[in-house]
């Protein structure tokens, strides 16, 4: 059963068509990749699914329900987490606090209980911090929990974004080019980490340019080019399909 689905999704900015007529489905518990040359509309697709842009046509469905009307934070609450192509961390906050914001919609303490530090609020804070430590350990960030997010290395910042998304206890995780800019050592760990996330029962939708990562871990691949979906299938089907090769390498001149 497809957990996340889009039907005829499309958007144009004052006439410039960024995305058109895209049907997409991400199976629950599977890794689905979205690939395509630069400017194909991949990140726009993510922003539409995450609720930052409102589509000019089509709809987005999650667990069978139409969520096109929901705002970004409401979609996060129901379990759609995302990372950003270029890092969007809370630079001046500590690594721990960055991750704690992920748990925001899962906690209950309100303004008054926070101000008065009621026992319930303090217990909840302790529980949140323990949970975040487990995520940080998973991504190898535990020892720099008190460091400022802005002062981390590029690779660690990428990992922190994933931790933050995980802290949302999401049902589906949209990863926007997690491999870009990583050194070889982080790259090897990345594939393992993504599959590990899937094994925790979190559906993953992955935008990535590094074909070896995509081909090795994806269960299905959708290919976008110039705002339209041109192919959808298993890695083997997509690797051999003519349209995909043309999209990337251009047509042979007849």
């Amino acid at each position, binding site marked *: 059963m497809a957990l996340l689905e889009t039907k005829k999704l499309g958007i144009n*900015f004052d006439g410039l068509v960024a995305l058109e007529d895209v049907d997409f489905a991400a199976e629950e518990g599977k890794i689905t990749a979205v690939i395509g040359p630069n400017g194909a509309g991949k990140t726009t697709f993510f922003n539409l699914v995450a609720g930052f*842009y409102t589509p000019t046509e089509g709809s987005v469905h999650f667990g069978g329900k139409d969520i096109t009307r929901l705002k970004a934070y409401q979609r996060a609450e129901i379990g759609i987490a995302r990372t*950003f192509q270029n890092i969007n961390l809370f630079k001046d906050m500590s690594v721990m606090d960055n991750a704690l914001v992920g748990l925001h919609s899962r906690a209950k303490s309100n303004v008054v209980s926070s101000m008065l530090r009621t026992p319930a609020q303090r217990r909840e804070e302790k529980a949140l911090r323990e949970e975040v430590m487990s995520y940080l350990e998973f991504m190898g960030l535990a020892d720099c929990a008190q460091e400022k997010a802005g002062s981390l290395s590029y690779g660690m910042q990428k990992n922190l974004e994933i931790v933050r998304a995980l802290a949302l206890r999401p049902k589906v995780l949209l990863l926007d080019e997690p491999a870009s800019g990583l050194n070889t050592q982080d790259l090897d760990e990345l594939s393992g980490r993504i599959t590990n996330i899937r094994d925790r029962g979190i559906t993953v939708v992955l935008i990535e340019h590094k074909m070896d990562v995509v081909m090795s871990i994806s269960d299905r691949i959708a290919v976008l080019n110039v705002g339209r979906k041109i192919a959808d299938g298993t890695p083997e089907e997509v690797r051999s399909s003519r349209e995909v090769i043309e999209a990337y390498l251009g047509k042979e001149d007849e």
Partner: protein
Amino acid sequence: MQILQQLIQGLSLGSIYGLVALGYVLIYQAWGVLNFAQGEVCAIGAFSLLVLHAELGMPVYAAMPVAVLVSMLVGYVIEFLSFRPLENANGTTRLIATIGVSICVRNILRMIFGADYFSFPTIFGDTPFQVGELILVPQNLWNTAIGFALVALLNLFLKKTRIGKSMRATAQDKEAARLMGINVRASLTGTFVIASALGAIAGMLIAPVYLFNFNIGATIGTKGYAAAVLGGLDFASGAMTGGIILGIAECLAVVFGSSEYQSAIAYIVLFLVLILKPSEIMSKKKKVEKV
């Protein structure tokens, strides 16, 4: 008929606000901060013209350019002391620095010129002439005309000349401009000095119309940045439109509303415009926020 007269008054008042607003827009575009000391630069323009013309007896047409030069020099000093060291501080800090500068400059003017009011012989004559029912004062008409002329000149300068283009490029993106080989330091300072010149001209045009003392910078300064923001802070002609809207709103306020709230009307108009139609009047391009 009285409405028409009020509109004329509103137009001339508005064009003065627009003139002051020009300086705010230029500096905002280049430095990304509202320079609260711009009102004081106008005051310096007015006072230096007063000293050159009244005390030293220079003829008005000679005193004006010199007064503009004096203001540009003061502008350079302000930029050097308080803007340059804070170039990459965050917006709030830089705003507070401009406020510190405005308090400082205003009180220096008070120490030099004391608290008395000064009047200024009008440059363009102030004997009103009658056109049908309407009473027009030449000085005000000249102010409106010069206001629009300056806007046109400024647009021309920014769009056509090489220096103008480099200033706009720096305003858009300092790093990109540096990569293009533009001397960012020079164009930033250049923008500031030109804005000071515009402020001086505004000050000199205001002096003959009203009595002014050391505090004139504060009074017209607040109206100046209200007009600048009303006009969208994005383009020079916006500053003039913002000024005219403000001026006319204030004049009509007295006709329709009560005069006690006259000065509040300017702010009520500003508040409503900002709340109700932020995208139309403001910059067009920020329609959809890039994620």
